[in-house]
């Protein structure tokens, strides 16, 4: 399997990448690890005229803590997420979810920015970003723009991103009571259903709750009716069970394929919501 022809430019900076994007008139794609894009190009499902390689831009890589926020550069690999000391300390759910992506080789090359911008309906990280209320930092010709993850993912392979924008980083607050639970599709290792739950628990009470699902529908999204049943209550098994019992009831366009029917997926949203909540609560 061989991609169609394209031109290749390597951008030395974010601004250069933006300029190249502008010049291309919408015919270009950004390339970092390439683990979302190259498989599509090999199958000739994507045929960009120009690839702009942002994989070597130093500003785009790395995990740091700044002003109480964790910042992850777009070209940081899944393996770096999975093994980051900083993330394990301040946002272990991100490491945990990254470790569930694909396989070792894929994690060595695949990047968080690529995964989020590509927005595969069964990708793991979108659900995590939505649940932990991450901000997506985009830079375009008119400067920086910040989009909450929740509104970044719009539809099947569709995100709030202009053709001349670069996804530069994600930022989020430390989060401890959070967990990701995933039903693996056996062949691809994508999620049939993946649920991320992020809670703020203070003095034995759930102060805030964000629960997001991937794999079930067109794009990662929150489960508001689950969240409602958690906030202000104690994280008991009964509360978790009750909240999980309505998980997915608000979802529309639930996927159905050879691996899982809509009925099964809907049931699994409940199971994996409960598992994610249980693990989030158990996480000290």
């Amino acid at each position, binding site marked *: 399997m061989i991609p169609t022809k394209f031109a290749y430019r390597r951008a030395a900076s974010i601004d250069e990448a933006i300029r190249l994007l502008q010049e291309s008139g919408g015919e270009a794609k950004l*390339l970092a690890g390439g683990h979302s894009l190259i498989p599509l190009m090999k199958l000739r499902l994507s045929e960009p005229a120009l690839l702009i390689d942002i994989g070597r831009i130093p500003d785009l890589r790395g995990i740091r803590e700044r002003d109480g926020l964790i910042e992850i550069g777009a070209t940081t690999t899944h393996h770096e997420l999975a093994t980051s000391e900083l993330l394990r300390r301040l946002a272990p759910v991100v490491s945990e979810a990254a470790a569930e992506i694909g396989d070792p080789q894929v994690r060595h090359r695949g990047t968080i920015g690529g995964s989020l911008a590509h927005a595969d309906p069964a990708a793991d990280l979108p659900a995590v970003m939505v649940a932990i209320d991450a901000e997506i930092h985009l830079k375009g010709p008119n400067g920086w723009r910040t989009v909450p993850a929740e509104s970044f993912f719009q539809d099947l392979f569709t995100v709030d991103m202009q053709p001349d924008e670069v996804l530069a980083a994600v930022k989020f607050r430390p989060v401890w009571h959070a967990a990701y639970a995933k039903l693996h599709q056996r062949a691809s290792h994508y999620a049939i259903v993946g649920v991320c739950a992020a809670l703020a628990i203070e003095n034995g009470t759930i102060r805030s709750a964000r629960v997001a699902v991937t794999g079930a529908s067109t794009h990662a999204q929150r489960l508001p009716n689950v969240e409602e049943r958690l906030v202000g209550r104690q994280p008991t098994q009964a509360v978790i069970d009750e909240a999980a019992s309505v998980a997915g009831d608000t979802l529309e366009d639930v996927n159905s394929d050879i691996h899982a029917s809509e009925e099964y997926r809907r049931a699994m949203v409940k199971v994996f919501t409960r598992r994610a909540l249980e693990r989030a609560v158990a996480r000290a």
Partner: protein
Amino acid sequence: MSDLVPISITVNGRRYELEVEPRLLLVHLLREKLLLTGTHVGCDTSQCGACTVLLDGRSAKSCTVFAVQADGSEVVTIEGLERDGQLHPVQEGFWEEHGLQCGYCTPGMIVSVVDLLNENPNPTEAEIRAGISGNFCRCTGYQHIVKAAQYAAARMRGVSS
């Protein structure tokens, strides 16, 4: 529109200056241009791992990397694992423990085990199985590969201690 792009790449310690079509996959650069045919292609969806090489020290599927992306990088293929005519302990493990049959997945599998042991010198059986979960083998049922990795881990720990 798709002019050749100059790249410089170090493969198995040898530096190459080449001009390549941007769409040339790293695995085809290795196999077709550098004639390093030990690295194989077993699928086209980045699953099987037959094409696994070390790219800047970490295992990567060379069918899912454009050669231009590897510009300035260091690549180690199966042909580059031996030292002074001595098999790498992982290669030795595969031989000792019958970790291969048809041999087609073997180069990629060996490279994955090398990567695993670089990161985790004393893996459990479960960690070995997870470490090679990006490599398909249709012949062995994986058990002798697990034993090969265990053999190599023991040898490498013995050597370094």
